[in-house]
């Protein structure tokens, strides 16, 4: 972390960048939040640890409009989102100085809490430089410990790898943390009967309080005006209809980001109700992979997304239909 802060200070001092986009410490040890830093003094609050899950790519849409360059700290998987935003002309590559920061998997406070660990006062082992495989957690009930992997976000168990697909400089080591099948849960749901599926989605989506956190954090949800807020389609009124959330909002959102979603997992990370929203997007990704060949949104700048491209080899609609 200190290396990162030192480098940020240098870049601010020599005028390469006008600000730094990173994370600052929150009021608790596990809730750092995205923040801009414009001076060396301000960087005293800078943190980078296992709880810095937030994907900062989307902030670059606004930062691209500001004067001067912004040093943005992106983890390997965040760079996919950034690349996708470049493809969609939503961020200005020239306005970004990308610090490809190392990552050894990010932590999910809900997973830690689910282990019965409450009243947390401090956590050791969450720093990037720590080699420890175990978290030491001081609580008001005494010291607890937990394997690092057991506290990781779901998305880190299906890690995209330790490579940054785009960066100006890399700071810190990364580690691939993949230890699960990416489509395992999707396959499980696919195997359910239609009634079981419906009740599964009903129970999950029924929890939605329509706080819009998923939409606001999603790098693919970068429309200037979301269709759900637009008065052009009467959809804002529809959003108020009973049970609309569970039936439509998330489904429409999944369709809108299909083919553009990099599977960054932010939607599920920020959901205060713990709805596994990423599964919708991942189902689309699985279908795209199976029908049109493997495709990772944001992996490169040139490839055409399968859903907005046509090739003679594309699956026929009848074949798509037969799959049910």
């Amino acid at each position, binding site marked *: 972390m200190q290396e990162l802060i030192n480098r940020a200070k240098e870049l601010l001092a020599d005028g390469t960048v006008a600000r730094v986009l990173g994370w600052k410490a929150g009021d608790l040890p596990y809730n750092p939040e995205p923040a801009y830093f414009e001076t060396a003094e301000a960087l005293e609050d800078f943190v980078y640890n296992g709880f810095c899950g937030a994907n900062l790519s989307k902030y670059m849409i606004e930062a691209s*409009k500001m004067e001067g360059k912004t040093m943005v700290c992106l983890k390997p998987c965040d760079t996919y989102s950034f690349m996708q935003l470049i*493809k*969609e*002309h*939503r961020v200005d590559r020239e306005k970004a100085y990308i610090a490809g920061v190392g990552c050894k998997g990010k932590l999910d406070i809900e997973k830690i809490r689910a282990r019965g660990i409450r009243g947390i006062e401090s956590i050791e082992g969450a720093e990037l430089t720590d080699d420890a495989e175990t978290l030491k957690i001081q609580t008001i009930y005494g010291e607890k410990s937990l394997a690092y992997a057991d506290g990781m976000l779901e998305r880190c168990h299906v890690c995209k790898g330790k490579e940054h697909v785009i960066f100006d400089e890399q700071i810190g080591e990364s580690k691939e943390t993949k230890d699960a099948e990416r489509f395992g849960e999707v396959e499980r749901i696919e195997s359910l009967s239609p009634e079981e599926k419906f009740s599964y989605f009903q129970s999950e989506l029924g929890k939605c309080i329509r706080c819009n956190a998923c939409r606001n954090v999603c790098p693919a949800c*970068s*429309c*200037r*005006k*979301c*269709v759900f807020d*637009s008065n*052009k*389609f*009467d*959809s804002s009124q529809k959003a108020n209809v009973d049970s609309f959330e569970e039936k439509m909002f998330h489904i429409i959102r999944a369709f*809108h*980001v299909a083919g*553009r979603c990099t599977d960054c997992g932010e939607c599920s990370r920020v959901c205060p109700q713990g709805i596994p929203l990423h599964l919708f997007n991942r189902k689309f990704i699985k279908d795209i992979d199976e029908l049109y060949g493997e495709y990772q949104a944001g992996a490169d700048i040139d490839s*055409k*997304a399968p859903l*907005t*491209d046509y090739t*003679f080899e594309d699956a026929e609609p009848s074949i798509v239909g037969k799959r049910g």
Partner: protein
Amino acid sequence: MQRIGVFVCHCGSNIAATVDVSKVAEMALMEPGVAHAEDYQYMCSEAGQAKIAAAIQEKGLTGIVVCSCSPRMHEATFRKAAERAGLNPYMVEIANIREHCSWIHKDMEEATKKAVILMRAAVAKVNLNTPLQAGESRVTKRALVIGGGIAGIQTALDIADAGYEVDIVEKTPSIGGRMSQLDKTFPTLDCSACILTPKMVEASAHEKITIYTYSEVEKVSGFVGDFTVDIRRKARSVDMNKCTGCGVCQEKCPSKKAPSEFNRGLNTRSAIYTPFAQAIPNVPVIDREACIKFRTGKCGVCSKVCQAGAIDYEQKDEIITEKYGAIVVATGFDTIKLDRYDEYAYSQSKDVITSLELERVMNAAGPTHGHLERLSDGKAPKEIVFIQCVGSRCADDRGKPYCSKICCMYTAKHAMLIRDKYPDVNVTVFYIDVRTPGKNFDEFYRRAVEQYGVNYIKGQVGKVIPKPDGKLLVQGSDLLDNRQILKEADMVVLATAIEPNPDVRKIATMLTASIDTNNFLTEAHAKLRPVESPTAGIFLSGVCQGPKDIPETVAQAGAAAVKAIGLLAKDKLMTNPCTAHSDELLCNGCSSCENVCPYGAITYEDKEVNDHGIRETRRIAVVNNALCQGCGACTVACPSGAMDLQGFSNRQIIAEVDAICR
């Protein structure tokens, strides 16, 4: 607020027998915006149209809904009627209560309920309709014909004779197509080459026709009247301007082992070759896969013997880009592969051949120089068995469900020609039905039976077994005598089903022309527009549309030409005003629409916008209305709903859905 008139058509009993039309009209009056509703026996009749005009004028209607047949039938009729009465034609909507309702339902109550819903959706849409004005677009006075067989040649000749430029693109090294491979033609038995060659020569000499052989259509963009096509001229390795067609190169070429495509692989050809003697152009091509020079770098015999210095090993594929007003597809057919019909022993015995191969065997320029002989040992056959419907009229998915239409006649022809030339050869034909519905066709078939003594057996062959002595044992059934037959034969000829040229899928995709489940191109209307594709400006000629013989192909080729000429004769076309446009305050500039636009109608501009007081320069999609064809792909791809289609706006479509779900 709109003042909408709803007109419910009985269509005689077509609609009224299943839908309570007066109930639909009555219900219409309860819809928001509806000021007038009535039903009438034939809305499309003059009297019906007069009722619409009268209501528009008397009730001051601002929009109308006609509940009738498919808009493909009468949308234009009702739009014109409304226009004559002073209404903008785009204020007319059709609710299809015939094809979508009365024809597919039996229960009156249910059908009426659905008709009311369809009416409601159309009313909801008209409530949001706005008057639209059509523009004009130009017509490029040049036609493209894809395929240089008899269909393509005839279409090209007819268009060229009307005074328009035509380009023929042919994939193989020569025009002529399947017809050039035939020996004699039914029902007159004249020699195929004798009647085809003059047409080929005429096409090649015609000042309005340009022929691109050994070429393929690579890319098509644009729309009716203004297509842009990339044509790949494959490297011939021979300079067409220098070559004199002397043929020495072919004689001297040391590589002579490539299978001859023209002779259906029954013999071989040299690596540098013209497919057949009457080929047009009479300029050979080098098959680079067979050529020793291309394979090993050593040889160059053709170049040494060519007096004209026409051989060019360095020649590269060339892309020609040309504009066309109309495109005619004439891609023809091939016989199906027989790998799923093992019971006929086609792959096991050289003496089991397809009818098209028999054409080559009987032809003087064929592998046996026209002598009827077994391909295994060159012996003269004494017993020949023809098997009809191999892969045609097939109930399972091994073959084709359709009748290939030409086989009954050419089999009669083959049988007759063999009996005429070799009276000592016995000919047996196994058939399911003999279908001869053409002028002088049945007479022809009867001549084969009565005059030439061909033995027709109603029944199918179950198995052909090659025997160690070289004979073929044919096991079939005679349904009229109700007995099993075991017959020894020297040769078996399979009337193999025909299928559209496999390349047609790719071409149809490029042209956005639709194809059916058998890969035949579909017509705009099976009965009333049989030579037009549903895609404007695309016309169909020959077997690419469905199985047909030469006389029918030539007739259809002429019909396709007339339709193309009718288009090329126009100076301007009315454009569809239903084009897309983007809302600059909603546009993200993400390029999704640009990526999916098949017409290249969308570009991006950096534009200064004022978004509720925020002034900034944004990347905004801009639609070129002259290029936009209103397909709506962009409106679906746009994540923020900034793209919208006039006449089919997002709000209109949502209003329709809402009306249906109400």
